[in-house]
């Protein structure tokens, strides 16, 4: 099955209906199970994310966007349901192996950027590759290259807390790309940026799409949701996907 994938990819790009990169089946996520304050964040999600497309999850806060995002990105495991990545069932994998898949497949850009203070921009970018134990020089060169591509080459030695918001986000993006993942996940990427910086982000997003990355975002920002780059918008409410607002914009 997986052996036939590359051939299918070329065919599918032509008809704009690619094979699902990620497939979710009846995903539930509950917190505080069995206690009086049990909270069910996701109540039966079925979703397919096609390869090399930009998908936006939107919905009010508390709708389960973030929970879904973290399950798709292998940050957490569903309470029940199946997650398939390129056809492989990964929902039963222990953390040790899930993490290995995650760091090779997904790059994360968090809303708060989550850079480690006191370290330089360059070190922050290199950090996700530390557990892989590759060659240090190669890693540093790759990180320098990514920062240069994001027009941050001159700031690579600066501590991250000295950088502006936009620069910090670009460091976070470089960090997400360091392990050359296929999928980029960004949580509310424009929430902390003004319009000019948001447009700059959309420019970077375009480049990522050109590079063939699959992108998944959460956002309320009309600038993002209404962008021509976005192929799909999935709206969520109360832990479920709202069926009729399942829009194909492109």
């Amino acid at each position, binding site marked *: 099955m997986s052996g036939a994938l590359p051939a299918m990819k070329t065919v599918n790009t032509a008809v704009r209906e690619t094979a699902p990169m990620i497939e979710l089946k009846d995903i539930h996520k*509950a*917190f*505080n*199970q069995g206690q009086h304050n049990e909270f069910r964040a996701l109540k039966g999600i079925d979703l397919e994310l096609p390869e090399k497309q930009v998908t936006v999850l939107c919905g009010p806060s508390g709708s389960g966007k973030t929970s879904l995002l973290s399950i798709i990105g292998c940050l957490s*495991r*569903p*309470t*029940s*349901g199946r997650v398939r990545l390129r056809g492989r069932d990964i*929902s*039963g*994998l*222990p*953390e*040790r*192996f899930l993490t290995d898949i995650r760091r090779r497949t997904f790059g994360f850009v968090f809303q708060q950027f989550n850079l480690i203070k006191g370290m330089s921009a360059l070190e922050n970018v290199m950090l996700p590759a530390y557990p892989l134990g590759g060659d240090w020089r190669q890693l540093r060169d790759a990180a320098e290259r990514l920062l240069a591509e994001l027009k941050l080459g001159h700031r690579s030695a600066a501590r991250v807390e000295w950088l502006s918001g936009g620069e910090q986000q670009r460091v976070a993006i470089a960090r997400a790309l360091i392990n050359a993942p296929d999928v980029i996940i960004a949580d509310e990427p424009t929430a902390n940026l003004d319009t000019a910086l948001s447009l700059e982000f959309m420019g970077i997003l375009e480049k990522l799409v050109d590079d063939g990355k699959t992108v998944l975002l959460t956002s309320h920002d009309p600038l993002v949701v209404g962008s021509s780059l976005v192929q799909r918008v999935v709206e969520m409410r109360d832990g479920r996907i709202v069926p009729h607002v399942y829009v194909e914009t492109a």
Partner: protein
Amino acid sequence: MIFQPAIIALLLASLVSAALLAGAAPYALEIIRFWDLRSGSERQLALERRTYLLSTVASFVFATQVVALLLFVFNADRMAAMIVGAMCAVGTLSVNNFGFPALISQIVLFFAAVCWLIINHVDERSPDYPLLRTKYVLLLLLLPLVLVMAALQFRFFLGIKADVITSCCGSLFSEENEKLGGALASVPVRPAMIGFYSTLALAILAPLYYRWRGTGAYVVAALSALAFVAAIVGILSFLSLYIYEHPNHHCPFCVLKPEYGYGGYWLYLPLFSATAAGLGIGALQPFAARPGLSERVPRLSRRLAGFAAGMFLLFALIASVMIARSRLVLLG
């Protein structure tokens, strides 16, 4: 009891080790009962996190015990100065009935712990944790061993009175002695040497054969254990004589002393690691046929086999060099 820092340290180490493992036991039981990898329930996630704690605790305890084993022998040797008639570790250990059992239990624990760590290693590298229940059952089985060892150590140290007259290695391992030690030491040199080298040769060839054909894992383990015994008998019966260049000095501990250039470490280090690797191959074998492990286990076992063969060979070479360099002539 003799108040001595090293004794306090050893007792502390066994006490903490036993307490940590005993504390881990309920968690191990919980994992054995409720483990369900297919589930994503919060309990399963919590159990999964616990596995990290248990592995860390077990590794810590076993690492501690390896160091403690060294310290135990070291300290026994040093304490000989305080015990009437004791001239080295043998004298100290035979001061009461718990010395040698404590040492032997510690050696057994060492080998058991290495086997457990090898199984743990294999398990943690397979995405479905196929040996998880097995390894925690085994961990629970190791707990009594640790407790027994700690108890023996306590009885041994608490029972030492400085004015007890003990036998030194000269009398324990001399030919007139009817105990096992004496019996081993009085094995005639030529048969002992033949047994020593032939068992070692088998223990070197078996893992090499295993590496080549992939069969005979249990034979490798059995021969490794046998070679360990043969090596100890060999050290007692003739190797020690060559090292000390004295026709009646049969001590297996004095080799560790600076007077003999710490030669013992060169003997015991390869011997213990070779035996541990050989036993590890046997410990893995029951799981070699499990789906998901049919590739991983033989690959690791092959590496262990190469290591075991190499270490046994090294041991045999070092022993031979020691014999060749000795000025003592036992065989005309």
